[in-house]
């Protein structure tokens, strides 16, 4: 179908056409998707292979000093006059070996390779104390700590390997420069490089370090936890590797308040919530923004401020206030409906009663929270839509509703797709609204450690904090990640904006 035919279709035909295309192209696109993933891994392994090849070829081509730096780090540099650099390499190696002897090796040893997959050796309890040789209470190993230190040691080993390879490169380069008869750069010259051609290293070193320690390390640790049996029955005991058993349990649906039932229920609600919260906030926010910016409306700044103030108030204040106002024992909204307006016969339990009442309530509160954001974001862009588009539409007899759906919405969708994707993913992870509104409430008896308004992330939080089922929480975190990553990947690949990164420069 040509474009000219396409634009003459009515919205439903367009939708049908797009849907048909989506499914027709699905195999092709899925193929592309998996090919892209395949390519990624191919490049990854080819890169590693090349790295190894370079590593060995440098060893073969290197002279005795370079070869010796494969054992004594920095040797090649020291011999050729780059003393400070060489000593730094040497110091790294010494520190690493001391660390491994004094601390690291023991942690790797405890990771379960030598104990049938159980992390740590000594179970806490009574027995023969190995130190005193007498019966008594034995201090057990703390599997959690051991795993944490183990992961930390693995990260340190990885960092050391990077430095080690850099050392061999540096030694070989020094040898080549010397052979070519050129002068080797001194330490200060090399330091200066870090403010110009290697400036990225300087800029990224500190953030990379902190992110490695406080984001990547905990993340690796939690991903590993998902493959252990560290649930509430293993607190204070040793736990073991169990492979994918945890994921299996998340999907099994047996018993009254089973994990599987809760999971399915919460996935359904999370998706409903994410779609409704994103779409409603987007469309309603845009309608309000259009009304504020309408020609002939006075006091625009006042109207804007009226809405935007709610963005400015910290969310924990406004949401905790909301949860109090919705309280069943005499919150302000119940007072308004019952005591002042006499609309309801009694106080309504907005958040703690019927699941669907609670769900509608959180969505409505989220509209209250979210619309001002949309107003803020879209106002500027809405003003950019050429006014003559609307004028000609009015001359052609289009009403405000029609021009909204025919002009405003397509234009805005075109410009703000990235924002929509981020807010959809943000809503899947929208912890604040749900948690702050419902944290005072009891969990449902039908669900495992969750209420009917819980999203996957708030369930994750409850599993961690209330029931201490760390492995299930970690497994759910991984599943949420998979959902978010897939959504973002597909949509980012479909929109052009992600590809045209350089277009502005």
């Amino acid at each position, binding site marked *: 179908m040509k474009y000219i035919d396409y634009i003459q279709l009515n919205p439903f035909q367009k939708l049908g056409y797009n849907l048909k295309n989506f499914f027709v192209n699905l195999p092709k696109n899925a193929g592309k998707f998996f090919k892209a993933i395949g390519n990624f891994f191919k490049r990854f392994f080819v890169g590693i292979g090349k790295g190894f090849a370079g590593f060995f070829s440098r060893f073969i081509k290197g002279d005795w000093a370079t070869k010796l730096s494969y054992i004594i780090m920095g040797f090649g540099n020291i011999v050729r006059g780059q003393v400070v650099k060489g000593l730094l390499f040497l110091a790294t190696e010494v520190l690493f070996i001391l660390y491994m002897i004094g601390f690291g090796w023991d942690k790797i040893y405890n990771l379960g390779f030598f104990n049938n997959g159980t992390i740590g050796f000594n179970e806490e309890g009574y027995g023969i104390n190995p130190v005193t040789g007498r019966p008594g209470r034995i201090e057990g190993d703390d599997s959690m*700590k051991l795993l*944490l230190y183990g992961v930390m040691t693995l990260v340190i080993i990885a960092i050391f390997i990077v430095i080690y390879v850099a050392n061999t490169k540096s030694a070989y380069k020094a040898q080549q420069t010397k052979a070519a008869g050129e002068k080797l750069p001194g330490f200060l010259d090399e330091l200066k490089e870090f*403010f110009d051609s290697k*400036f*990225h290293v*300087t*800029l*990224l070193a500190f*953030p990379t370090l*902190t*992110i490695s*320690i*406080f*984001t*990547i390390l*905990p*993340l690796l640790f*939690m991903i590993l936890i998902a493959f252990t049996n560290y649930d509430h029955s293993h607190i204070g005991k040793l736990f073991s590797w169990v492979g994918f058993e945890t994921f299996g349990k998340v999907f099994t649906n047996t018993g009254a308040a089973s994990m599987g039932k809760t999971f399915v229920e919460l996935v359904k609600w999370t998706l409903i919530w994410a779609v409704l919260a994103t779409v409603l906030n987007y469309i309603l926010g845009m309608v*309000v923004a259009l*009304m*504020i910016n*309408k020609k*002939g409306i006075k006091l625009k700044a006042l109207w804007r401020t*009226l809405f*935007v*103030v709610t963005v*400015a*108030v*910290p*969310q*924990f*204040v*406004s949401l*905790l*206030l909301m949860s*109090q*106002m919705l*309280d069943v024992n*005499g919150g302000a909204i119940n*007072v*308004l409906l019952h005591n*002042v307006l006499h609309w309801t016969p009694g106080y309504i339990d907005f958040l703690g009663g019927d699941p669907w009442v609670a769900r509608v309530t959180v969505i409505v509160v989220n509209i*209250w929270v979210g*619309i001002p954001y949309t107003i*803020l*974001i879209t106002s500027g*862009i809405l003003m950019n839509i050429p006014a003559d588009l609307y004028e000609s539409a009015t001359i052609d007899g289009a009403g405000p509703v029609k021009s909204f759906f025919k002009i405003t919405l397509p234009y805005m969708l075109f*410009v703000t797709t990235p924002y929509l994707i981020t807010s959809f993913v943000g809503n899947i992870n929208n*912890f604040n609204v749900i*948690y702050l509104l419902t944290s*005072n409430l009891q969990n449902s008896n039908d669900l495992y450690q969750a209420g009917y308004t819980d999203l996957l*992330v708030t369930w994750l*939080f409850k599993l*961690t904090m209330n029931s201490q089922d760390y492995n299930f929480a970690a497994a759910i975190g991984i599943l*949420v990640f998979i959902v978010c*990553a897939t959504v973002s990947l597909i949509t980012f690949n479909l929109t052009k*904006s992600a590809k*045209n990164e350089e277009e*502005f*420069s």
Partner: protein
Amino acid sequence: MIKSYKVRRFVTNAFVYILLGGLGLIWISPLVYLVLHSFRDEGLAYVSYLIPQKLSFQNYIDLFTVTKESSMNFPRWFMNTFIVAIFSCIISTLAVMMVSYAFSRLRFKARKPLINIGMILGMFPGFMTMIAIYYLLKAMGLLEMPLVALIICYSAGAGLGYQISKGFFDTIPRALDEAATIDGATRNQIFWKIILPMSKPILVYTVLTSFIGPWTDFILAKIIVGKDIPNYTVAIGLQMLIDADHVLNNFKKFLAGSVVVAVPITTLFLIMQRYYVEGVTAGGVKG
């Protein structure tokens, strides 16, 4: 014809005014309720009417003068939050600017992979790692100094929030860098003397968001500070005031405290909102 057009416009405008007025009332009324009842003198937590009968400053006076080590100490909480906010704001802003400049303007081999890793890390739910961070801090002995631990937590991962400012840096013409390089400037000088001064909107946006962060976060703070009430931040302190045990006597203090926290932040935000919008639309929205 002209007259009927005028009438029609009058009617639609009146309709829009009524709608806006109604919606505005709904949006602002919870905040009006908050301010009004923070001055309420009578009653305990809930009253069965909307307009307070007697107004006074008693709740505010109580908020700042009633300080018990074991249960509440609002001035101390306020100072804690302020200190944490200042430090984490400085560190995070530096980190964000450095990372986004490197990703946007410099070209090096690891750039694409690092950008992708950053995106992937951002897709894991943040609360997943919270318990691991707790144990990590405990192992480092930092839980003895909750404020330091909080500063580290709020600023350590800041570098990952580079997307928006990277989007902004992408829009600055590269010809500027090239001209400066020809004139002999190093990349370090380009960063400090050319790019940063040109990035005021995004700088203000980053400072603002990272300053407000500690005032509003309370999940991480709650886990790290635990039961150490004097070291609470305002967010966890105020939330404690309305938990089931305290709400009856402290609800009015909660309202007053919320006003005290919300007023400066709201003012700050309203002054800076132009930068906020520029910041978000520069990086987050593209055609």
